[in-house]
């Protein structure tokens, strides 16, 4: 693995490792419970997340941001499998989660941009981003980073009493292998 860990001011990014799965699942579940993720209404088990992130072909990498102190990770990002279907080998879904306690420090942006920089080197042609219509800053981030709107599904994600739409963004990568 080249160019890791990287440092960005006080932010350290490295590969997510199996030992991080507990804190990664906790961060993911924080986002699920608060209705911010598009994963679904139920929390994800450590085993399921381990399968998704580590039982995948090697191009599907994931990254962690931590305090460089062997403590829990502050946030994580993944170039995850879109589905397990044969025809999407060169497609990755970008996922980024930061714990509530460590937001507003640029960790999510740093994780996302690190994943974006790795994606062409890993042979991906297309990145997908599946998000809710809010917050607006996330959509603005996507557009600034050359994602285009591919469309939306209506009323599929239960969030509290509402059935939320999910938006799909797509970005083509230049210079992929």
């Amino acid at each position, binding site marked *: 693995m080249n160019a890791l860990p990287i440092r960005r001011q006080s932010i350290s990014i490295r590969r997510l490792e199996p030992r991080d799965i507990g804190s990664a699942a906790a961060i993911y579940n924080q986002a699920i419970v608060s209705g911010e993720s598009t994963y679904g209404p139920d929390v994800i088990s450590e085993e399921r997340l381990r399968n998704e992130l580590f039982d995948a072909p090697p191009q599907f990498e994931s990254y962690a941001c931590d305090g460089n102190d062997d403590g829990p990770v502050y946030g994580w990002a993944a170039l995850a499998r879109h589905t397990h*279907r044969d025809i*999407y080998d060169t497609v990755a879904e970008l996922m980024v989660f930061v714990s509530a306690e460590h937001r507003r420090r640029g960790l999510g942006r740093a994780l996302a941009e690190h994943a974006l920089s790795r994606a062409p080197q890993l042979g991906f042609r297309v990145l997908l981003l599946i998000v809710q219509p809010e917050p607006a800053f996330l959509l603005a981030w996507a557009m600034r980073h050359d994602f285009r709107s591919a469309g939306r599904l209506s009323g599929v994600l239960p969030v509290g009493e509402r059935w939320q739409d999910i938006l799909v963004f797509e970005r*083509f990568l230049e210079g992929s292998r």
Partner: protein
Amino acid sequence: MIRPAREEDAEVLAHIYNQAMKPGIYATAFVTPVTRENRLVWLRQLCPPFGVWVYVSGSGEVLGWCSLSPFAPRANYPLIAEVSAYVEENHRFGSIGGHLLACMVIEARRRGFRSLVSIVFEKNVVSIAGCFEAGFQPRATLYAAATFDKVHENVSWIQKDLSAPDPPVLRRLLDALRAEEQ
């Protein structure tokens, strides 16, 4: 007649599915042929509210099948199902596909789903046209996202709101199926 699939249908389910993988068909996102055993495992995994049904001819031959399965990109969404339907290659372009689609709409409503989604190659115009006649609407297009036979293909997500009124073509099929059930 349409009935729930049984384990003894696994072989014909695999046969019909593998026909859909042939070049130029653009009907499935899998390119590795499946086996009877593979379909058996799949049948056992698709527990209610999901399920599989088969279209059986008057002589008892299975000529097609359809399934309601979890929406693949977000498999734990509770009230959305992904639809799939496959017809034996010598019986395509008839009415079997429409009957299978109507079956999925009836079963999905019985099971409390809010909407159905089909993820389909944009080139599969016959399937898309049939879904549009049944009230599906275009929702998203992933351009060149899929790689099929070394060519990058567009993939469409189309969705049917099960609480919306059905178009006349689908209403006629639903009426025919309900009459058959009685």
